[in-house]
């Protein structure tokens, strides 16, 4: 099981060393100045003329080489740090109504122009039902999960919902601990059937009341849930392979 170096716990520290390197649009234009001297001359014709007779600077000559250099110079470019975009509160009549009903159990936020709400686990069945019945979110686009092994509540479970009537898309997110189950939303949206099965298959999250909760993409009898962070990218169920395929695993 040669596990990939990118272990689940590493992300935050890994991100730290060069947080300024390149953030969204604004900074990228700034970083360009750092390497700009190199890049710019390569592209402008005058520089080409200069480069030819001057025999000299080898690197700028091939246009293709230019883009390669920036990474090296990047750390030096520490431009005014753009405030990393952060989620801002999301306000709408619907949210106000939900807030009034459920109070602090709901945290409505906006990020990159997209609205979502973090909902307390205990409110999930009710909120989903209300969103479907009262707020017309009649299309459940997707159900998925994210694994954060270093957290106490290891899993984010996300419902992406869309309302045809309002042409609005939102996400509902909740956090659960490993081993905790969620109520199935199959009675609310029939499409949840396969989507929940996939979440179960890939993360091992159970959905209570699901009509037929079993693996969907992996064969039955497979051990482990591959999209958990502690499941290595090259790992597989060797026992299953041996028994069912009759071959020695190549790993």
């Amino acid at each position: 099981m040669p596990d990939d170096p990118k272990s689940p716990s590493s992300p935050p520290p890994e991100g730290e060393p060069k947080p300024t390197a390149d953030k969204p649009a604004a900074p990228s234009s700034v970083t360009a100045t750092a390497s700009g001297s190199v890049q710019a001359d390569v592209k402008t014709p005058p520089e080409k003329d200069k480069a030819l007779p001057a025999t000299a600077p080898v690197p700028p000559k091939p246009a293709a080489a230019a883009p390669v250099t920036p990474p090296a110079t990047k750390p030096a470019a520490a431009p005014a740090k753009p405030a990393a975009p952060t989620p801002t509160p999301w306000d709408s009549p619907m949210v106000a109504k939900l807030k009034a009903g459920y109070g602090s159990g709901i945290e409505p936020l906006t990020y990159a122009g997209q609205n979502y709400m973090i909902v307390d686990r205990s409110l999930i069945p009710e909120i989903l039902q209300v969103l479907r019945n009262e707020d017309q979110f009649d299309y459940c686009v997707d159900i998925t999960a994210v694994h954060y092994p270093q957290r106490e509540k290891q899993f984010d479970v996300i419902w992406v919902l869309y309302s045809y009537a309002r042409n609005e898309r939102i996400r509902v997110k909740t956090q659960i601990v490993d081993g905790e189950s969620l109520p199935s939303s199959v009675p609310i949206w029939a499409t949840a059937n396969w989507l929940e099965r996939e979440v179960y298959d890939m993360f091992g999250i159970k959905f209570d009341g699901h009509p037929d909760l079993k693996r969907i993409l992996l064969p039955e009898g497979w051990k482990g849930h591959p999209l958990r962070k502690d499941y290595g990218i090259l790992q597989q169920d060797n026992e299953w392979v041996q028994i069912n395929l009759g071959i020695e695993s190549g790993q």
Partner: protein
Amino acid sequence: MTDANSSLSHLDLETPEKPFLDANELVINMGPQHPATHGVLRVILRLDGEKVLGLECVIGYLHRGVEKIGEHRTYTMFNPYVDRMDYVAAVSNGLGYCETVEKLLNVEAPPRAQHVRVVLTELNRIASHQLWLGTHALDIGAITPLFYTFRDREEILKIYEKYCGARLTTHAFRIGGLQYETYAGFEKDVKNFLNFFRPKIDEYEELLTTNRIWLERTKNIGRISAPDCIALGVTGPVLRASGVKWDLRKAQPYANYKNFDFDIPTGQNGDTYDRYLVRMAEMRQSVRIIEQAIDALPEGPIIAKVPKVMKPAAGEVYHSIEAPKGELGYFIVSDGSTQPYRVRVRPPSFVNLQALEVMCRGQLVADVIAVIGTLDIVLGEVDR
């Protein structure tokens, strides 16, 4: 026969049904290795004579763990992988992925790149629909359309090949725009193709639209109502054929689709024939879009300023596009590092396939083939 499909309460497999023939219930396997299943799809059919009482899809034979791979590749490195999901519409997959990462990075592709993207994506929609038409007709027993559509699809693949060197898994787009400027004569090639292709749609229609065998095999077959479509999350031409006028290109425009004038074709009956008509009409609309895009192709840069080492700020974004098969969504979680923390793909084929049960109940075995064809699934995308 069709009333069995009208309500989702019939989803329950145990619903007692009147025996059709006085025979025992028969359970048979269709697939996984069968050309009419368009890949490796296994369908377990419960039959009463030839009538389908219920069915269950067994999928996952092509599972390659694309989402897991995504967590172990940089944003740029993962880009070619998405082409391998819906491999007959690789360009659409790439568009969805690139736009999602662009949202995370907060950059926007320059206008010229957007136009070229629209041209290539709509060409891809035509190619995908052509492949669907050819194989769908072949499944039902009409061989000729396959030759016609593959002959014409070749012209699109040639344009791709000239543009980026690949025919199917094109990797045509980059995060932030395009890697390659269009080749000399690109516009001419595209215009020539449009002129060549317009009469070809009529040719396909001549073969099928009023063909009596075609009508018998598709009319009132595999009906699904609009409420069922919505409950089952079905999108794309299948949803539109049931009468829901919804297309992400109009509802929540991405790329620069809002600049183009086109219609959303819809059907009324939600049967296999209507889905056929909708897709035929969609090809004509795609021609319209490409025409406008290629005529108004702006000059300018083809890629926005994106860092070589992409490290989107920590955050999560869901973005979806109207792929030829329906809503293709990407949910990407960034932790601020060079690799996505989580990439979730919401594949239209996977969700649409779930409706097979509702559409086939009460139909005959031979119609199951027609319905699988009309759903237009690609197993590479179902299983990922």
